[in-house]
């Protein structure tokens, strides 16, 4: 089971032990004295942590988050991490993400296409500790490889792969294998696990930059 940094705790919500971070609530999640429940059913990263994958998180670390959407997961990340760069390319969810960022001074929203890291390399700093990716579009491995430039030595990748985004007809396991194979261009994979049933046809991957 992953060691949790100070900024993430296991706490009781409605009689169940669940993950929680400290910050302003974002998506109607239950709260308890400043702590907000991290709903693994709505967050793939939450499901990866709940699933006991070998993830190494620490407070104050620098993060690049790709596919931030309206901020469900990246809000929890910004609660425990340091500078957190959140890339999202659709305007609608970005409008919500802006409210999430207003309430967190370490969260930097960027309306950019994750397939074009050149368009934010002048803003996102180098040597980050963590790259979190949940983009659900074709070419997910390519995106992770191209964005490895932002990670420091041994930087960690936490990736949620959606099988259907790569190939709707192929068997998901085949898709996962080929995405993982492409990842090895820039990363060494340390753990992989299906995120069913909370996130069907998704694979969680933990990897280190080579």
């Amino acid at each position, binding site marked *: 089971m992953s060691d949790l940094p100070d900024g993430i705790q296991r706490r009781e919500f409605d009689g169940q032990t669940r993950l929680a971070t400290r910050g302003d609530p974002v998506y109607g999640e239950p709260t308890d004295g400043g702590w907000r429940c991290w709903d693994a059913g709505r967050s793939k990263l939450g499901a990866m942590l709940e699933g006991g994958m070998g993830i190494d998180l620490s407070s104050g670390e620098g993060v690049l988050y790709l596919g931030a959407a309206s901020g469900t997961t990246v809000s929890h990340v910004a609660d425990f991490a340091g*500078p957190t760069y959140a890339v999202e390319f659709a305007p609608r969810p970005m409008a919500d993400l802006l409210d999430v960022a207003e309430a967190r001074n370490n969260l930097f929203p960027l309306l950019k296409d994750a397939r074009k890291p050149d368009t934010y390399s002048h803003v996102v700093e180098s040597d980050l500790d963590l790259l979190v990716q949940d983009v659900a579009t074709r070419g997910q491995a390519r995106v992770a490889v191209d964005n490895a430039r932002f990670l420091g030595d041994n930087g960690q990748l936490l990736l949620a792969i959606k099988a259907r985004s790569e190939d709707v007809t192929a068997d998901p396991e085949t898709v996962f294998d080929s995405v993982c194979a492409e990842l090895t261009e820039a990363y060494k994979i340390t753990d992989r696990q299906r995120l069913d049933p909370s996130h069907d046809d998704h694979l969680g991957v933990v990897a280190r930059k080579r």
Partner: protein
Amino acid sequence: MSDQSTDAGWFAGHTADDDLRAAIRTGTADAPTDWPTAAVNAGFADDTDDYYATLQEATIEAAHDAVAERQGADDQQLLHAVRAMDDATRTANELAERCHKWASTQFDDVDSGIDGARDVASREPTDPVEERVVSLADRIDDLAAEADELRGFIKRLAPEVALNLAEMAGPVLAARLISLAGGLDSLAKKPSGTVQVLGAEDALFAHLAGRGSSPKHGIIYTHPAVSGTRPEDRGSAARALAGKLTIAARIDHYSGDFRPEIHDELDDRMATIRARADDGDEESEQ
């Protein structure tokens, strides 16, 4: 922009808020650096906390501007841009043909087309006639360069106006569809059968007047889902593509969300249509 160094941070050389926001939105760099330290060293920020505070303000404002701009989705600017690009390209090609004929009377080895005109433009005129020919070639060079700039502009603007449509059709075809319909609004209101033949109006009217068969596709013919499919399946491919493009345009017009599933569904449909061809091949081989 292009002559600016691409290894500088977003803060380099800017002080005004507006410039900083614009730099976040349009700047680029080949590789990231330790920007917080660079900014402190450059005197842009007092310390890293100060840097992050300024960065947050600038990123939020930049994203806010971009969202507001996109939600005001200026489809009309896209429409003018794509028409201007097509006009510039067509005119440049026509003039290049004229220039080629004329220049061939003055110089040896003149190539046709835009490249030929660019070559003529680089020559030193030695008499009044050559002066005119070289000057004409110069204008053609400029016009072709403007068409390229317009294409780049369309590529940036189309995803802002219609993200799903641009993702599915590619930015230039997305712009053409919006232009042919007269706007995103009217494209979103068209039935998919109309979208399928947009750009083939001449053929459609001829068909309605009893001349010729009904067109299977208009401008969407240029999409690889249609052009890359064997001729006997192009009708089904065009119908499937038009259906999904119509949905993409409606999502872009009414909601603005990115919906990965519609792109998956198109791929799904195309895989089925192409599988027919594979099955057919197998049968004929047996």
